[in-house]
């Protein structure tokens, strides 16, 4: 590589390169930034080279190794020019095929990106949603150049803007162009770059002036600077050269993090090549312009991103910030005038001079021109680097480009600006992002980190995380920053471990304000943002942690304890009975279950097992322990009579009779626990037999009647009377109950009225609400379904109705119609699977329009097909009708179940207020209704809900009524349920854990299933149960293991 001595020599080189480049042969581009390499790009490169050489394709295919292409989620990825074909997540074998396809100018149909909605392949990079809505002025250049080849940069018109300036540019023109572009510093604060340069240009430069590229990208979660440095180092060099020309700077410094080895390597190579070619150093390209750049490696101190601290670090000193003024442009490195700009700012300079300042200023919004790169990471489907015009909304970035949530959990917030920034709640996602709007909502742009958080992210944990970070990284110069961040961390730690009171919130807020007001540098000034923004937008989470001792994201271990226990609405110590099963102690296991749950056999069959969805095994990528099946094993093995509940009668409780309306799980649970306290309880049931939804809603193939009856019987003791065929509003009133001497009333009559579809023809013969259909059968044995049966709905009652219909003799076929997709169905997945196994058809993405009749009888339903559209408040995609997709489905019986509501029109006349949704209005903390002494719980307040929630409400009602009758404060802080009983470890070794799969309970053969109501799921064998129980990771041991045991264990590992 010879040195170029003049501008014309450079132009000649450019022309020569273009002759070579114009050969139109296809190019395989392998993305090999740090992310690519970490995902296996280096292996792809080897395979590509092997194939090209062994097949003699070196003259037919170009291979270009580049920096990152931004779509990190899909690494290692390959791009094919000239057509822009994009292959994501390419494997070694795939690479062989890619080379072959490129040699034939073919496209591999199975490899491209698949649209998540349609499943259709998207061949071209520019058509992929992730890329489509971006404007990649800077990042797209990464794809064009191999960062270690300066020729690659030059042949893509690199250094042309510099040449133009050297050739005939006035220094003032350079400055005015940058000012006109409106470029603001991309490092965070957004200071106008042109202004900064002008100030530097005016300084006396006799002793030299510095230009600095701040590549100390310490903001955790942001990595766009790394991507640009790795992928296009010459653009930074060119930017700095232009800056030096405009400002008269003589020396350049790139201050880069040590944590970025690849960026440093590529920078060193790029600087050397530029120097060898005569583009850096003395008399650049034979002109009288001289400038050189050196690399200074940061040694791992976040505060060195602050400009005055950075300068001290460059001087070889401890990186402590100092007061400003004097500003660096007056007195900077070694006392000389210095201008410091961030990597992304520098990368924008060649872009501005390439496209012209006027055009650049048109991009983005007023006062916020150009594009901004964000690192979109965290709980989002497509993570990566995203470059969009300033003023793009968070909604566009997160949902359109990022593809929405990564899992099933709802997105709750984004965090921008790193430790100096704040959290923005999803309700504000229509915010157009620029420097000013972000500051207004309490965050900052920072370097552009955007961390997406979902319901599994605890906002207090995030605030605590940043405080921990900041207390470590505070340089310690200002007392308030040094101590303030420590104290804020301690307070947050107390809150997240359940040791704080409500007053801590005010203390934290006050401290945060003090730190903000009394610190010197940017780190301290903004250190409170993570606390202040979470306090502002997520105060309820703070209160939940303190008052209820609950972390709804299951992150704060000290108050979560064992996740299975914390997830259970009635706090069942699942870990404990699972451990007992592992040790073969079945009676103890039964006792543990029964202590918190009066309906163990019921829950063992129909519970929605929230414990399993939070099981730690599941969160580490394996299948959760089959907790419900284990509960079933115990309840089937142990005689319930072995358990004798503890009775704790207080004085006079027997003299205070209580009325419970409804004998479902909620009502009977309340009656049971009140009875244990000595109260006399009368349960009024409107139907002829007790059980509520357990009896009339849940079919016996899921919950055999004998088992249910036995469980109900066990709860009806000497203190409990069940009075059937007595309906509130028909046979009795609340006034009458109080007049009869009842001291308190618990309303638990469930939700027994089906909501209507509100479409034409719902009154036609042959159309039944699901509740009626199920009651007719479950209570009276009436088999009303015949012929072709349609079921409209996607919840558990839809699946129940469908499976009950299938078991009726006159039925030919059963079809479930649901308006979203299978993934969105609220019904238990195992139930849906079972229904499909039994031959029930599932038609998804269908909306009923009109019910058709022939001769007054049902003949079918007119439907419209949907596709999934935008996300709604529940985080699910809304169905959007496809015009012209109408069709008619023919049915002889139609069961409609789109949600049930309480049947309580009469209740307002009894002094009980009702909500807009038609449920009883109540205080969720105390269950109190608008009438003194009357409490309500279960489906009558929540609408259709799970059995275990109804049981939880019944337990709470018993406690509240007891407090009420004793004149105690109803609202009392709760205590976290932390494991407290030590049981020796029972777990498997890691090897065994990997080998043993989650147990699948056997089911009755299909022959017997569809023709009878025999219970489908069978109980586990003793061996199966023991093996499954041993899979438990025993999260409880962390809390219960005796101290000496712990030490022994760790000591054993070392030795």
């Amino acid at each position, binding site marked *: 590589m010879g040195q170029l001595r003049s501008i014309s020599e450079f132009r000649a080189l450019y022309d020569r*390169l273009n002759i*070579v480049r114009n050969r139109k042969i296809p190019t395989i581009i392998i993305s090999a930034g*740090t*992310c690519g*390499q*970490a*995902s296996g790009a280096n292996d792809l490169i*080897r*395979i590509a080279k*092997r194939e*090209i*050489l*062994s097949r*003699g394709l*070196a003259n037919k295919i170009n*291979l270009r190794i580049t920096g990152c292409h931004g779509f*990190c989620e899909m690494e290692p990825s390959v791009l094919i020019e000239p057509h822009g074909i994009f292959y994501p997540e390419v494997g070694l074998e795939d690479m062989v095929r890619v080379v072959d396809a490129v040699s034939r100018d073919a496209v591999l149909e199975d490899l491209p990106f698949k649209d998540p909605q349609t499943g259709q392949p998207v061949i071209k990079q520019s058509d992929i949603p992730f890329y489509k809505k971006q404007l990649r002025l800077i990042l797209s250049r990464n794809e064009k150049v191999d960062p*270690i080849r300066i020729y690659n940069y030059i042949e893509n018109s690199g250094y042309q803007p510099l040449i133009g300036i050297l050739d005939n540019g006035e220094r003032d023109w350079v400055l005015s162009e940058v000012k006109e572009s409106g470029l603001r510093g991309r490092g965070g604060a957004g200071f106008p770059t042109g202004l900064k340069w002008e100030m530097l240009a005016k300084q006396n430069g006799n002793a030299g002036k510095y230009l600095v590229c701040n590549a100390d*990208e310490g*903001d*955790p*979660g942001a*990595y766009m600077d790394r991507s640009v440095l790795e992928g296009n180092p010459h653009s930074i060099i060119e930017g700095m050269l232009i800056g030096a020309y405009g400002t008269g700077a003589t020396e350049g410094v790139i201050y880069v*993090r040590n*944590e970025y080895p690849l960026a440093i*390597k590529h920078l060193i*190579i790029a600087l050397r090549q530029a120097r060898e070619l005569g583009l850096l150093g003395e008399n650049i390209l034979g002109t009288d312009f001289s400038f050189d750049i050196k690399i*200074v*490696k940061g*040694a*791992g*101190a976040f505060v060195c991103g602050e400009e005055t601290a950075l300068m001290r*670090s*460059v*001087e*070889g*000193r*401890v*990186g402590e910030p100092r007061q400003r003024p004097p500003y660096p442009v007056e007195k900077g*490195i*070694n006392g000389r005038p210095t201008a410091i700009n961030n990597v992304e700012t520098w990368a924008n300079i060649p872009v501005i001079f390439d496209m012209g300042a006027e055009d650049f200023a048109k991009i983005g919004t007023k006062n916020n021109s150009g594009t901004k790169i964000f*690192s979109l*990471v*965290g*709980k989002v489907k497509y993570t*990566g680097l995203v470059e969009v015009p300033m003023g793009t909304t968070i909604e566009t970035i997160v949902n359109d480009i990022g593809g929405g949530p990564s899992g099933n959990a709802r997105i709750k917030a984004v*965090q921008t600006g*790193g430790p100096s920034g704040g959290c923005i709640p999803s309700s504000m996602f229509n915010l157009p992002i620029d420097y000013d709007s972000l500051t207004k909502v309490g965050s900052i742009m920072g370097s552009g980190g955007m*961390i997406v958080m979902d319901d599994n992210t605890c906002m207090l944990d*995030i605030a605590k*995380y*940043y405080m921990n*970070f900041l207390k470590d*990284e505070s340089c310690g110069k200002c007392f308030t920053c040094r101590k303030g961040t420590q104290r804020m961390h301690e307070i947050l730690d107390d809150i997240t471990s359940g040791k704080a009171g409500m007053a801590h919130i005010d203390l934290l807020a006050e401290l945060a304000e003090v730190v903000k007001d009394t610190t010197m540098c940017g780190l301290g000034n903004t250190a409170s943002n993570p606390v202040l923004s979470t306090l502002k937008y997520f105060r309820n989470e703070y209160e939940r942690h303190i008052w209820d001792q609950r972390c709804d994201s299951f992150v704060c271990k000290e108050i979560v304890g064992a996740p299975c226990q914390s997830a259970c609405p009635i706090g069942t110590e699942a870990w404990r009975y699972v451990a007992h099963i592992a040790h073969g102690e079945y009676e103890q296991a039964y006792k543990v279950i029964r202590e918190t749950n009066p309906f163990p056999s019921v829950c063992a069959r129909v519970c929605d097992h929230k414990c399993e969805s939070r099981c730690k095994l599941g969160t*580490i*990528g394996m299948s959760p322990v089959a907790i419900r099946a284990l509960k079933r094993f115990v309840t089937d093995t142990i005689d319930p009579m072995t358990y004798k509940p503890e009775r704790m009668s207080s004085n006079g409780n027997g003299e205070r009779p209580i009325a419970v309306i409804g004998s479902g799980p909620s009502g009977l649970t309340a009656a049971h626990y009140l009875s244990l306290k000595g109260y006399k309880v009368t349960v009024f049931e409107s139907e002829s037999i007790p059980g509520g939804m357990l009896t009339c809603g849940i079919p016996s193939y899921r919950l055999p009647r004998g088992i249910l009856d036995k469980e109900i019987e066990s709860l009806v003791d000497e203190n409990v009377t069940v009075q059937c065929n007595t309906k509130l509003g028909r046979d009795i009133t609340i006034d009458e109950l109080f007049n009869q001497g009842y001291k308190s009333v618990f309303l638990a009559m469930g939700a027994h009225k089906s909501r209507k579809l509100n479409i034409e023809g719902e009154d036609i013969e042959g159309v039944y609400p699901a509740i009626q259909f199920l009651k007719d059968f479950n209570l009276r044995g009436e088999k009303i379904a015949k012929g072709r049966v349609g079921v409209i709905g996607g919840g558990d009652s839809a699946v129940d109705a469908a499976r009950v219909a299938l078991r009726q003799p006159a039925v030919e076929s059963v079809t479930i119609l649901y308006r979203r997709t299978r993934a969105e169905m609220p019904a238990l997945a195992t139930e849906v699977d079972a229904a499909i196994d039994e031959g029930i058809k599932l038609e998804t993405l269908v909306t009923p329009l009109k019910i058709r009749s022939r001769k007054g009888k049902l003949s079918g339903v007119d439907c419209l097909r949907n596709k999934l559209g935008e996300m709604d408040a529940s985080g699910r995609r809304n169905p959007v009708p496809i015009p012209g997709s109408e069709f008619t489905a023919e049915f002889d019986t139609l069961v409609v179940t789109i949600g049930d509501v309480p049947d309580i029109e009469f209740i307002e006349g009894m002094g009980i207020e009702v909500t807009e949704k038609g449920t009883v209005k109540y205080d969720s903390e105390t269950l109190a209704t608008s009438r003194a002494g009357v409490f309500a719980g279960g489906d009558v307040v929540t609408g259709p809900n799970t059995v275990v929630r109804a049981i939880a409400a019944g337990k709470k009602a018993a406690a509240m009524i007891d407090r009420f009758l004793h004149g105690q404060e109803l609202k009392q802080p709760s205590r976290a349920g932390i494991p407290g009983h030590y049981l020796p470890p029972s777990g498997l070794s890691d090897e065994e*854990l990997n080998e043993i799969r989650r147990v699948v309970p056997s089911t009755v053969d299909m022959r017997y299933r569809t023709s009878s109501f025999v219970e489908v799921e069978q109980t586990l064998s003793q061996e199966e149960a023991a093996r499954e129980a041993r899979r438990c990771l025993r999260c409880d041991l962390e809390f219960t293991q005796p101290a000496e045991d712990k030490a022994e264990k*760790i000591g054993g*590992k*070392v030795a």
Partner: protein
Amino acid sequence: MKTDDIAGIVEKHKDDRGGLISILEAVQAKYSYLPENALKLVSEKTGRPLVDIYGVATFYRHFSLKPRGKHLLSCCLGTACHVRNAPSISKEIAKQLGVQPGETTPDKEFTFETVNCLGACALGPIVVVDGHYFSNVRATKVKEILEAARLGLDKGLAKDDSRVFPLDVSCPRCNHSLMDETHYIDGYPSIRITVSFGAMHGWLRLSSLYGRSPATHEHLIPKDTILNFFCPHCHAELNGVSPCSECGAAMVPMMVRGGGIVQICSRRGCKGHVLDLTGVNI
């Protein structure tokens, strides 16, 4: 520790006013930590008080005053990794190794560190061992990673690995083949070149499998020696001008049959190499 080594490092950075951090980096690169005596020598040679040097050495996270283990394991605790369960990974590593972050195992095998962000956020949680990145790490994978590190992550590829393939090379000057059909290494004809260092002069045979490093040579060549390479046919010196990106020694180019140039580092023991198929000739 040799006084000369420290003096050399200080000398190299003497014109650089802010050189202290670079000096400490060089010292740490040599000894894997900053020995007390080395800091005293740095103080002596630079004339800066020891307290200043100690201040800088303890302010920056990168520097260690304690000896480090054979393997450096860093667990990223950046925000993106944090929300994806990085704390449980860090805990698992601490449990497996029996040491806390910042500590070294008693057997000096591992030093365990946590870092604030490695900038590979999309792949989190990230663990880096001896420069090798492990992405989307789960607690159950930690054991495997430690095992792999113990076995050595920088081990070359096996000869039957699909990523290994033979090259047929020739002299860039006379274009004469450098392949030696009479001596096989890894089951393929070897590459034969003449080398010299100091007063020694002799042949060197390399495996022609790209990705493999076995070699035999006439004389015992001490590790880290920079060799001069010559074509055994035209006797032209082969050492080129471009430096190795790993160690800075000159690279040695050879023409590849089928297209392109392969370059290997002239320093014995350095794994620096480039295979360039496009090989634009300007």
